[in-house]
């Protein structure tokens, strides 16, 4: 486990280097943005701006400075927002985390339930529906699903708010506010989860079907256990491992899916911030967001590992 954490840290540094290099290679920098907003600037002024922000230093020197700073939890200063990047990101991070985690959990829970049901009634109509739904959910682009839901449930039937995360006109205690956020969260969460529900339910269906044919499930039946506990205790616990593994692998996809969903629903998270800072060529903020996304994915993968160990003692004993 310790080795896992060490690996994760190394990976994070590699991500930092890669991000920085790619940003460096991309054409245009903050000097362009500033000069544009000034209505054009000559070469000397550009040079001055670059010197001021340290952009005239050699690449490796810049890289070193950047990484040292990040390791001291300093992600730099956003010239565009006039705020430290860390402050900026920490302000938006909770919204994104809320969306990512709730969508991932919803997708897992629904995916698993649907998968188990479909596996137990493998030729039933519902099983067919699951397969169909899985195909649709997986092949439909997120923003399309999002806009469709938005039109249906926010504009036509006005069950859910159109945009944002909180309704500023509502005041009240913690519970009222939590309810309000949940109300706003519902559609974006469903939209983001829809891709993954499909993925997880299909894998879960296959996995449960396979496990139901194993010798130890036969043993469980031979003990006289009712079908319920054969399926939910003996089979499911084993069938979950591949699903959890997939969920871990999909974590980065969930995070990048969140960027799109946030844009569609104007969800005030990192995704919206990313879009704005890319347009503004606000390099420190972009780098900061990339860093945090990587962090979220890596932590997600570590969590996956821990869950897998809890599910299957054989993994734990292999170290």
């Amino acid at each position, binding site marked *: 486990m310790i080795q896992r954490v060490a690996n994760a840290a190394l990976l994070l540094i590699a991500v930092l280097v890669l991000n920085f290099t790619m940003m460096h290679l991309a054409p245009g920098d903050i000097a362009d943005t500033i000069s544009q907003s000034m209505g054009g600037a000559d070469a000397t002024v550009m040079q001055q701006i670059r010197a001021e922000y340290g952009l005239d230093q050699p690449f490796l020197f810049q890289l070193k400075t950047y990484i040292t700073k990040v390791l001291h939890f300093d992600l730099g200063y956003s010239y565009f927002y006039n705020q430290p990047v860390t402050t900026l990101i920490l302000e938006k991070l909770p919204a994104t985390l809320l969306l990512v985690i709730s969508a991932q959990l919803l997708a897992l829970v629904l995916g698993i339930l649907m998968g188990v049901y479909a596996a137990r009634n493998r030729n039933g109509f519902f099983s067919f529906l699951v397969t169909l739904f899985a195909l649709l959910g997986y092949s439909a682009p997120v923003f399309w699903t999002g806009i469709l839901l938005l039109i249906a449930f926010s504009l036509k039937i006005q069950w859910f708010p159109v945009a944002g995360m909180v309704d500023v006109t509502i005041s009240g205690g913690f519970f009222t506010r939590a309810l309000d956020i949940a109300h706003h969260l519902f559609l974006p969460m469903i939209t983001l989860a829809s891709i993954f529900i499909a993925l997880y339910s299909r894998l879960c269906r296959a996995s449960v079907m396979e496990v139901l044919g*194993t010798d130890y499930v036969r043993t469980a039946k031979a003990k006289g*256990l009712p079908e319920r506990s054969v399926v939910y205790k003996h089979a499911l616990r084993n069938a979950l491992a591949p699903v959890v593994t997939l969920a871990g692998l999909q974590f980065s996809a969930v995070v990048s899916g969140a960027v799109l969903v946030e844009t569609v629903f104007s969800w005030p998270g990192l995704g919206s911030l990313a879009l704005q800072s890319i347009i503004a060529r606000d390099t420190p903020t972009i780098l900061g967001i990339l860093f945090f996304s990587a962090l979220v994915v890596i932590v997600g993968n570590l969590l996956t590992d821990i869950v897998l160990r809890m599910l299957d003692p054989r993994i734990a*004993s292999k170290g």
Partner: protein
Amino acid sequence: MNDSFRSQNKPALLKVQNLTIELTTRLGTAPVIDDVSFELHEGETLCFVGESGCGKSMTALALMGLLPEKVSRIASGSIEFNGVDVTQASADFLNQLRGNELSMIFQEPMTSLNPVFTVGEQIAEVLRHHQGVDKSTGVKLATQLLDQVKIPEAHRRVHSFPHELSGGQRQRVMIAMALACQPKLLIADEPTTALDVTVQAQIFDLLDELQKEHNTAIMLITHDMGVVAEMAERMVVMYAGRKIEEGPVDEVLQQPAHPYTRGLIACVPHLQAFMHEERVPLLEVPGVVPSLNQFGGNQCLFADRCDQVNERCLNNRPENKYTNQRSVACWYPTAEGVFL
């Protein structure tokens, strides 16, 4: 066709009558078990022998109500356990029997335990389910059972996961689990094929001991004539889904009536001496078993390999002929004086 043996006065614990099981494969549907009848009494050991694929495990699974779903079904016949036909019983009723009065040890010890639960939990689960004991009592009883099946350091092993145990130990765990509720009938499907020879002998000694203690009836499936000679009172010889011979072990071994049984015995030189030694692969009668799609034909399915075959054998299925203690399905049985 209801002429099994009525030599004992008590009603049989298990009475299988004209059991036919159909299996559907790519080749079509065929009877893997074809009109098989037998009885088993309390405290008795009945051995099933026969080549691989002749339907021994299928018979056992049918008794447990665990036939592979979708591909197989009971086409006709009945299985009476304690006077109740389990083929007609509800799932709830079956679940009350299984693991309680009727238990099975499977052929595959390496894969028959659930890898994600401790062996103690897997044993205790049976006790909680059938006897309503609480969690801590369950663990205590599981430890005792592990001790009973001679697993060293039972109090520690009870918390082990299956992958931490050897094959022999896993099979002992399976035995402990099967015997937890002191069943009336224990089905042991080749309990030692996956294990090495010394462990084999230990497992059989263990079964023997536990049977004497609880008067359990055992249906023992094996490839091994040495085991039959040592363990059983009566034996059934299966061939291509049919019961071709049945009778008391010593009589059948001394005077086999079916040419196939004769062949089986001929390839085991010193039956009695073999239990605790390394053995050559047994049941090596020359020729091959008919394939599944030939099962059910109106002929003797052994005809291809029989040196006494004639016209009649090829065009008529030999029915089981019964005498007092024995039965044989052959037009020309060889046990002089027994079948005439």
